[in-house]
């Protein structure tokens, strides 16, 4: 599913029970990070649960490849949404994308606890900062 499909799907669901279930299922589809990649350096500070994130360019050295994982299913689902926002974009394209705003639009931020919301913000900021480092 691309990000628009995800968005449509989540918006079509009624109630948070269904939405969280969907988010969790999105997380399930995200491949697990090998333990060897769950390193201190990859930890995103400011998240309540553990979030590991690696960002790189693909073989053509053009498009973003982000891989990430979390020890909670729901946060992993949130990561899946964030990754769907950024993966495969050119860095300069990705700079234009504000996944946090998208979460807000979907009403997700308002529903998450403030610390989870800050976690999402921290992940997005981390991605943006790493993109800057590439350019």
């Amino acid at each position, binding site marked *: 599913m691309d990000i628009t499909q995800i968005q449509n799907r989540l918006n079509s669901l009624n*109630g948070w029970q269904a939405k969280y279930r969907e988010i969790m299922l999105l997380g399930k589809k995200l491949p697990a990070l090998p333990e060897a990649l769950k390193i201190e350096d990859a930890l995103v500070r400011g998240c*309540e649960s553990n979030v590991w994130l690696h960002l790189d360019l693909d073989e053509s050295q053009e498009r973003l490849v982000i891989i990430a994982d979390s020890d909670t299913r729901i946060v992993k689902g949130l990561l899946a949404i964030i990754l769907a926002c950024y993966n495969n974009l050119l860095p300069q394209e990705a700079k234009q994308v504000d996944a946090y705003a998208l979460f807000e639009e979907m009403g997700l931020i308002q529903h998450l606890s403030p610390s989870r919301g800050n976690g999402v913000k921290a992940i997005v900021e981390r991605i943006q900062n790493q993109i800057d480092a590439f350019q």
Partner: protein
Amino acid sequence: MIEQLRKDFPLLHTHIEEQPICYFDSAATTQKPQSVIDAVNKFYQQENANVHRGAHTLSAAATTQYEAVRTKLADFLNVTSKEIVWTKGATDSLNLIAAGLSEKLSHDDVILISPLEHHANIVPWQQIAQKTGAKLEVLPADQQGVLDLEAAKQLINTLKPKILSVCHASNALGNIHDVAALITTAKPYNTITIVDGAQSLLHLRPDLSAMGCDFFVFSAHKALGPTGLGGLFGRYELLNDMPVYQTGGEMIERVSFSGTTFRDAPGKFEPGTPNISGVIGFGAALDYLNSVDAAALSKYEQGLYHYLLSALKAIDGIKVWGDTEHNIGVVSFTYKDEHHFDIATFLNTYGVAVRSGHHCTQPLMEHLSLSGTVRVSLAFYNSYNDVDTFIDALKDTIDMLEE
């Protein structure tokens, strides 16, 4: 009985996610009876004034009320009112005590705590230990998170600690500690004994004279009272002997630029304007507690706890931590390797409010090799229906996770 009491708690009749709320987070903070809310309301509408300073009727009346609650609490705890200090919470109380005792500590003295302590009963001692060179030691507990009482007594006998600070009941697991036994063991060594009663004030209504502790701390918000208020009991001699902690107005006898003298306890530990509405609201909470049948409530709570416990244990993959025989009604559980946060988040969508995480007891979680648990904490205002709703929601949640 409980259906009647539940009517006194307006929040229990609200909704989460359009479902009737099942409030299972009383160990974090209890809900408040209407009489407490009314007392705060009435204070601000009709009685609001600063205390201890006034020639005017309002201020005199506020002071009288404020001091009357001190006496009411002292009676509740079976101590005298000048042994009660108001603080902003259990954390504030523990910091005050740790600072006050620090000059009694020297290199090689031992401060002994349990592995089940809340961070508020760990970090202040770590700080004081760092400052004084004293050693912080920890009592032994088993793999379930249950204190080993016999080994604990032995360790007290071996270490002869200068300070022993233990929670009466654990907020993370609900375990009730036999603090009286520990205190008795420590008595021969002149150990200063401190009991963290944050979780016990409501559930166990401790008689401090019988318990024999030197200090006892609590938070009002965990015992039907308002936020921003707590307090401590200190045996008068020890209490009055401690140096001042915070300084400012009210707690002084005389201030001049050449020097300042302080009042006796409890005044010397209460600088500045106190949480007057908090104290008055807490007075109403104590009235409420005095008006209900404590023994019946406790029996009900225990019944509810065991009902919850059996229902939970019947679910495959659930593990309940802690001491389930001596417990204030807190169930801390994990389900297989699932993350506590996922479970709590799903439960919330059913209107079930539980807590998940380390419950400010990271060393205990480390001891249990857990990143956290889901914690269901009961109070007498929870119903059997609440528990049924929770169990159903949990089963649905598990189904979803196993999908």
